[in-house]
């Protein structure tokens, strides 16, 4: 019976709390302490890696090889040294081209497909959707051999970013799926109203759906941007022979190779690859979290 009173009862008249209430309040307080201590412990687990990486990026060469956790002298010049490393600026440029151009192409090509899958009724719609989902689940390694031979041997485009960018002009399975999930939540009445007003399909898409789909489009744009930013396999297959076409994620690993023992410089470079992602996240938190939730919820 005492369990019923677990929540503090709100009373209008000032009555001194009964013993049962007092134990309930004490229990609630202890629970608050327990939950928040666990929260702090978890927060340390999630943040300390970032902190250690950042601190090491500011250490001197010799100190980076010691077991110290805090820098004796704060070597901000490490970041300068990273930028002075040959190739580093090129990797930035390439990453921005790959991520920027790729994002535009994915949005332009995926929106109409997602719209058709969400709002048109046609034979084979479920089959199409299943194929989209299957492609989304497919490891890129499954088709990489013929794709590589196609780009490298037939089109002679290896050593460039194009084999990674061009396919994005033909829709991306994950973006189509996520956007379709989003468009499903837009009531059909809007479409019917547009039809009554005499809008064609394209006009409806551009004038009615697009403005309402902004959050969904923001989510796929962000995910695509990060996919390009994070991609390691694509550049490894298509660009490894030409350092002039490397991206940040791919170059970062070779950076460690070239600066074999310099953990401080390597960690400074790591921070420089991490920082833009975190920065973008702080400006676009909502789109991100919505996107993650959408992919995990039934459509």
């Amino acid at each position, binding site marked *: 019976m005492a369990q019923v009173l677990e929540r503090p009862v709100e009373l209008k008249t000032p009555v001194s709390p009964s013993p049962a209430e007092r134990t309930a309040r004490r229990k609630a307080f202890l629970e608050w302490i327990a939950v928040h201590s666990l929260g702090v412990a978890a927060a340390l687990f999630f943040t300390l890696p970032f902190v250690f990486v950042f601190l090491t990026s500011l250490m001197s060469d010799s100190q980076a090889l010691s077991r110290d956790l805090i820098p004796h002298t704060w070597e901000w010049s490490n970041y300068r040294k990273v930028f002075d490393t040959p190739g580093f600026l090129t990797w930035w440029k390439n990453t921005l081209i790959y991520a920027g151009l790729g994002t535009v192409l994915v949005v332009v090509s995926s929106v109409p497909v997602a719209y058709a899958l969400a709002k048109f009724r046609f034979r084979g719609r479920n089959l199409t959707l299943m194929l989209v989902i299957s492609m989304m689940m497919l490891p890129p*390694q499954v088709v990489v051999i013929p794709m590589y031979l196609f780009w490298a041997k037939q089109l002679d485009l290896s050593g460039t970013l194009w084999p990674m960018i061009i*396919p994005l002009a033909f829709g991306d399975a994950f973006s189509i799926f996520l956007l379709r999930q989003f468009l499903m939540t837009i009531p059909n009445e809007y479409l019917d109203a547009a039809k009554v007003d005499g809008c064609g399909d394209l006009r409806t898409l551009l004038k009615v759906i697009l403005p309402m789909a902004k959050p969904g489009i923001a989510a796929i744009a962000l995910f695509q941007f990060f996919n390009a930013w994070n991609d390691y396999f694509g550049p490894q297959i298509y660009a490894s022979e030409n350092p002039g076409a490397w991206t940040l994620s791919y170059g970062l690993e070779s950076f460690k190779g070239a600066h074999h023992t310099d953990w401080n410089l390597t960690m400074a470079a790591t921070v420089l690859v991490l920082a833009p992602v975190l920065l973008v996240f702080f400006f676009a938190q909502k789109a991100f979290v919505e996107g*993650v939730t959408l992919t995990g919820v039934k459509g």
Partner: protein
Amino acid sequence: MAATYTLRAKHRRSRLRTLAFLSPWLIGFTVFFAYPMISTVYFSFMHYDGFKPPTWVGTKNWKYVFESYPFFWPALRNTLWLVVIMVTLRVLFGLGIGMLITKIKTGTGVFRTLFYLPYLAPPVAATMAFAFLLNPGTGPVNSMLESIGIPAPGWFNDPSWSKPALTLMFLWGVGDLMVIFMAALLDVPKEQYEAAQLDGASAWQRFRFVTLPNISPIIMFAVVTGVIAAMQCYTQPLVAGKVASGVIQGAGTSFQPGYPEYSTLTLPQLVYNLGFQRFDYGSACVVALVLFALSMAFTALLMRRRGGLIQAGD
């Protein structure tokens, strides 16, 4: 007559409209999936080194991969290890963190952001960071462990610790699961908890008989997508192996993946090893097809018609 004619014309127009809207994907599907998929099957029966024209060798590549290529079975075992142990731990941890965040009442936004951030870390950057944090000699983790008297493991340099080290890194990036579990937990009807409480259910009983049944579809979703992700695990083990082994040639080297002792070798790495390091495209295609079969099996589980986790809907 006229009515049927217009109806038919209307149908044709709507079919054309659908085709037009789907066309980017239809082209993409054909050129970047159907055609290479058929080629992969074709090449799996050919000997092809990228220079001399391909020659038909029947099932020789298949026999080679399954019987004499020394890395196939270790890679399959490692992949299964990740599928079973890493995915289980990740789902349990994600659920735990998701429950914790719904209980936190003060500073929820801050906690949620801190828990979510690691998920965003680019895989190469995260792996470089963990290779540094967990490096046995000077890494901060081992420094701390030793300072409180716990014997420090060799992490990415010890074959029996390299997979747990990878797992630890993936637990760190559990933010995506936290978000979907949090959404699911907040969706559980409050009345059910209140009813259970009236019946005198203990905290464990409330979790077991109210929370679990309500979120079980999301748990299944997390398991299946986790399994698919574990089978695709490529960048992290490869980079961790490279950094830990201290290869200094940098990217695009002859580095034999799997350091130490094949313990971080996964199936996707074999495609790269066979195709792009040994120039045995035929055998690489065999491994690619094994990977394809496994992925499709798990995807089918995700989309089973009845009770499937992703539904076509209307």
